[in-house]
């Protein structure tokens, strides 16, 4: 039966591309050094063995899993975890994940690693929210894979192979995990402040000033015209918003509206492209003005929302161009 929210059907190459790119995002989310690193002499770059580098080995302010089981969380910072074989195993896991064969074997360990690292990171006294989206996407994938295995009851063969239908559904649950973060954020704003949030948004320049001041005390360097347009943008926006509180309400308020309507990205490829592109622009503008880290949200939006929309457009354009060429050839 037809539904308003519908998962798209993808070509095999699109699924391979999305899976491969997401594997790179997981690599970036984990404390694993890159294959290509700058030369110590500063002259160029060299290919090096990836290393597992965790900066903390305690949980001074335990959160989440660390409250009940700090040993599990700090296990990723033990000397054994710092050894080269541990990094090699994770690279193999990522390669296995990217290849897509037997996803139920490769996805849960990657989920566990991102959750342990995220929990350790958040147990240092300062909570950040930039890694959650990667873990939530992996959690949705793992849950779907387990559910699929249980539902089909193919205990011996169900975990092998990678049928396109299952792979397409993995993309679908990943898209829902990403959308969930926006909807939750919007609901929290409405729960905490109600619709008065839109009125209070005129106080946003205080947040801008605070972030600018903290950015200054990071390096004791004030942005100036010589650093370029982007460096002086936060100060310009601050002045503009102070002069026009209503403009401030409209601009900042549109962020909440966008978070609420993010669910429309699940209507189909065109909607995914439109909503995904607007959300990417939203994150890029906030990052430029507030120096906040949204790179994982941006990566996931580009891979699972913008990319399928672009590939669909290119495929349609290619088919039309081919048909036009055939028609012209017949006329000649």
């Amino acid at each position, binding site marked *: 039966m037809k539904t308003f929210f519908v998962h798209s059907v993808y070509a095999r190459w699109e699924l391979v591309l999305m899976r491969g790119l997401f594997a790179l995002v997981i690599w970036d989310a984990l404390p694993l050094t890159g294959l290509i690193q700058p030369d110590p002499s500063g002259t160029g770059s060299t290919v090096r063995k990836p290393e597992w580098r965790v900066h903390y080995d305690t949980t001074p302010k335990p959160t989440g899993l660390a409250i009940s089981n700090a040993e599990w969380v700090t296990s990723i910072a033990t000397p054994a975890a710092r050894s080269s074989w541990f990094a090699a195993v994770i690279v193999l896991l990522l390669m296995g994940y990217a290849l897509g064969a037997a996803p139920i074997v490769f996805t849960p360990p990657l989920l566990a690693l991102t959750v342990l690292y*995220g929990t350790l990171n958040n147990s240092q006294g300062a909570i950040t929210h930039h890694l959650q989206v990667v873990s939530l996407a992996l959690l949705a994938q793992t849950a779907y894979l387990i559910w699929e295995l249980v539902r089909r009851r193919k205990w011996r063969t169900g975990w092998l192979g990678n049928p396109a239908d299952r792979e397409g559904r993995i993309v679908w649950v990943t898209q*829902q995990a990403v959308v969930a*973060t926006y909807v939750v954020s919007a609901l*929290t704003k409405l729960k905490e402040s109600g619709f008065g949030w839109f009125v209070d948004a005129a106080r946003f*320049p205080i947040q801008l000033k605070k972030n600018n001041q903290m950015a200054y*005390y990071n390096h004791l360097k004030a942005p100036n015209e010589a650093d370029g347009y982007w460096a002086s943008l936060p100060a310009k926006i601050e002045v503009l918003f102070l*002069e026009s509180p209503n403009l401030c309400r409209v601009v900042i308020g549109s962020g909440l509206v966008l978070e609420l309507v993010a669910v429309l990205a699940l209507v189909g490829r065109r909607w995914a492209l439109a909503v995904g592109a607007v959300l990417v622009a939203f994150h890029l503008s906030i990052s430029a003005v507030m120096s906040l880290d949204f790179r994982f949200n941006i990566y996931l939006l580009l891979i699972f929302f913008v990319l399928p929309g672009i590939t669909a457009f290119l495929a349609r354009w290619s088919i039309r161009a081919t048909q036009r060429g055939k028609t012209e050839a017949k006329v000649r």
Partner: protein
Amino acid sequence: MIRPSSRLKTVGKRLLREAKVLAPLLVLIVFCFVPKLGRSKERKDAFRYEYFPFSHFPMYSGFGERDYYVFVTDRDGKPIATEPMTFVRSTKLKKVFNTDLSVIQKQFKTRKDLLTAEQCRPAGNATLKQLVELAPEEAVPKLRQMSPLSLHRVYLSLEDGAIVETEPQEVGTWPAP
């Protein structure tokens, strides 16, 4: 003629179908709010609301009339660039301080901006201690040379369309007295 009850049934069925399709989304939304709803009464800090990867994403869920930032100074009162020396950014420093301040705020049952410098001092001292602990080993001797380090907080508010900053208030030192 279609009866209202049958129309309601049709709408209900349609909504159920959509909910079934969006089941992963709905389940994740509920799970993200579980740490917030099932919070422990024993813990007073903001950490009780977080269970990675589940979070209710509280960033900018409210715009208060006042907010503050913190910075660190050396023995001569000169600000220290924390990031190049300790790899700790001011935002992290503020979050660490704010977490401890939330516990103190609950003790005194007052707003954070009404807490005196002396009341804030345990949080400030703990923040600077953690800054030194998080700094790389080679940075610690330099920090010792610069000590006593002080943590200052500055409040920002909007008055007549302009942002007003309070005088920096010393809220912690390292080594703690």
